[in-house]
């Protein structure tokens, strides 16, 4: 096996994994605490990229773009919670799916209105261009930046949830909403803050992937479904589950696409393997999710108290 290819693909898998984690973490918090299915969470991923791209186009600084885009995306998340999501918490999941499906259309059309139908490219920041040699492969620096940022945010989120007063309230809100409210906590505001944090993380993922792909309408709709796969596999409401689930899904998806044909060729003719591999590799994560739902519906790492 080619070590350079393996290293590259493994890193690509990790990169997809951390991006998925950034989207899934907010999704699982919102889902776990408010019991709210937010199909429109991918919209934050999209607008994060567009906000950042606009600032980069004007100032040329990616870091400045990031510093502007994150609070803006958080503000949009906060506004979405207060204006629409809040009145849906008491409804059933069917209503959540429908209303947030409508929000996707609104978000996509709004982006179309403000930025046009064409995608928006963001140049790779000057300080992260080039490649570094690593385990036999040439790794683009920017991909390392993505992976490290994602891991740093994961650690930060873990510290926030397990070590701070806000995190304590979030955990308490997840296990017993009514009790937290009875203790005098403004639970509405807490929910809005969680929404804003989730939106900012999704926006961060979107603006980090934009220099590699580009910011485009509908980019959120592709990742949101995979993010749902992640939180189902990891266990709804669990940040640890979202993290491990995201890495599993990222690595399996990427590795499946590059190595499944080789694997299949060991027990069938290579003709069949070459036909079956692309189909099977695209289906792999959904097969994994369906298997987990059948065998262990609560996911791999369900939160302890619900």
């Amino acid at each position, binding site marked *: 096996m080619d070590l350079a290819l393996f290293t590259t693909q493994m890193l690509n898998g990790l990169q997809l994994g951390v991006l998925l984690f950034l989207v899934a973490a907010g999704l699982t918090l919102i889902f776990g605490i408010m019991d709210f299915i937010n199909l429109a969470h991918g919209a934050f991923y999209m607008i994060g990229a567009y906000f950042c791209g606009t600032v980069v186009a004007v100032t040329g600084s990616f870091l400045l773009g990031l510093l502007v885009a994150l609070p803006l995306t958080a503000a949009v998340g906060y506004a979405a919670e207060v204006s629409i999501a809040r009145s849906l918490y008491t409804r059933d999941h*069917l209503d959540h799916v429908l*209303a947030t499906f409508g929000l996707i259309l609104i978000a996509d059309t709004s982006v179309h209105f403000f930025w046009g139908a064409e995608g928006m490219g963001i140049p790779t920041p000057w300080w992260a261009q080039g490649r570094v040699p690593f385990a036999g492969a040439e790794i683009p620096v920017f991909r390392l930046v993505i992976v490290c940022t994602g891991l740093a945010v994961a650690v930060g989120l873990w510290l926030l949830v397990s070590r701070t007063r806000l995190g304590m309230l979030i955990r308490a809100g997840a296990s017993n909403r009514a009790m937290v409210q009875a203790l005098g906590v403004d639970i509405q505001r807490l929910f809005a803050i969680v929404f804003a944090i989730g939106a900012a993380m999704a926006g961060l993922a979107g603006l980090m992937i934009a220099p590699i792909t580009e910011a485009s309408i509908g980019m959120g709709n592709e990742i949101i*479904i995979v993010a749902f*796969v992640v939180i189902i596999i990891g266990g709804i409401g669990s940040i640890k589950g979202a993290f491990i689930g995201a890495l599993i899904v990222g690595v399996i998806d990427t590795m499946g696409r590059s190595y499944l044909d080789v694997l299949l060729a060991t027990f069938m003719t290579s003709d069949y393997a070459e036909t079956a591999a692309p189909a099977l590799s695209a289906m792999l994560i*959904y097969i994994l999710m369906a298997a987990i*739902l059948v065998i262990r519906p609560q996911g791999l790492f369900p939160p302890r108290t619900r």
Partner: protein
Amino acid sequence: MKGETIAGWGLLALLAVAPFAIAAAGQPFLMDLATRLIIIAIGAVSLNLILGYGGMVSFGHAAFLGLGAYAVGIPAYYDIYDGWVHLLAALAVGAAFAFVTGVMSLRTKGVHFIMITMAFAQMVYFLFVSLEEYGADDGLVIYERSAVPLIDLHDDTTFYYLCLLSLIAALFIVHRVVNARFGMVLQGTKSNDQRMQALGFPTFRYRLVAYMIAGAICAYAGALLGNFTEFISPDMMDWTRSGELIFMVVLGGTGRLYGPIFGVAVFILLEEYLEVIMNAVHPGAGVYWHFAFGLLLVLVVLFARGGISGMLRRPEHA
């Protein structure tokens, strides 16, 4: 007769005379719109059986539409145009896919059911996206419509009436099913599955059979859709399509016999004319019709519970 029943029959009667009106008005493209409306309505009626009456929120129902379409497209690819083959293939594939996925999905509840049905639909989607032989994501052209005895489906009016009769048959099947003992049990599982089990009903089997009936009917609609568009692609099975189907059923009113056809009619007409209307209000605004559409979706969920059927029913209770 209830208001919604009158409205339902009225809509069906309107569809029955539509070809004459369209021919008189000289607007042949309206024929396409009406045919598509009827075919999608069959799919929505089948979704209503499991979603509205059985409480199973399937977020992957578009997969059945796609499977039915490919059950016509793939035989046609091998120059098999026999309509009976197409019909049998569509019904069998729809029911079989519903059986296999239903056995697994129906063990889960609530949001897990939503997600697992979505997962199975995504699997089918990606399967067809990767099948180079059948066009992959470029889709597959069907050069001839299904050959059936006595009638010629290439005649648009004949095909239209076949679709309309199919819709009426689908409504009749759902009507008979839900009012039979079987349907009573099904509706019982929706409100309280445990209680139905305690009463001694093997509810899993009831729900599975309902799921298979819905799958077969929807695959049949897919077979009609493939014949109608003469071009099929995995895009028909995108998860957003499943979302649209749910929206149509909810818009019309879940668990109401005629609800889905109201929902589909409003949906298809909005999809077609919202752009025109918005352009009339402000030239150039039509491009953004999805915005108004999404807003409407949010407003329907927030304020119009019970859908169109609910509004038609209200005067009775007043």
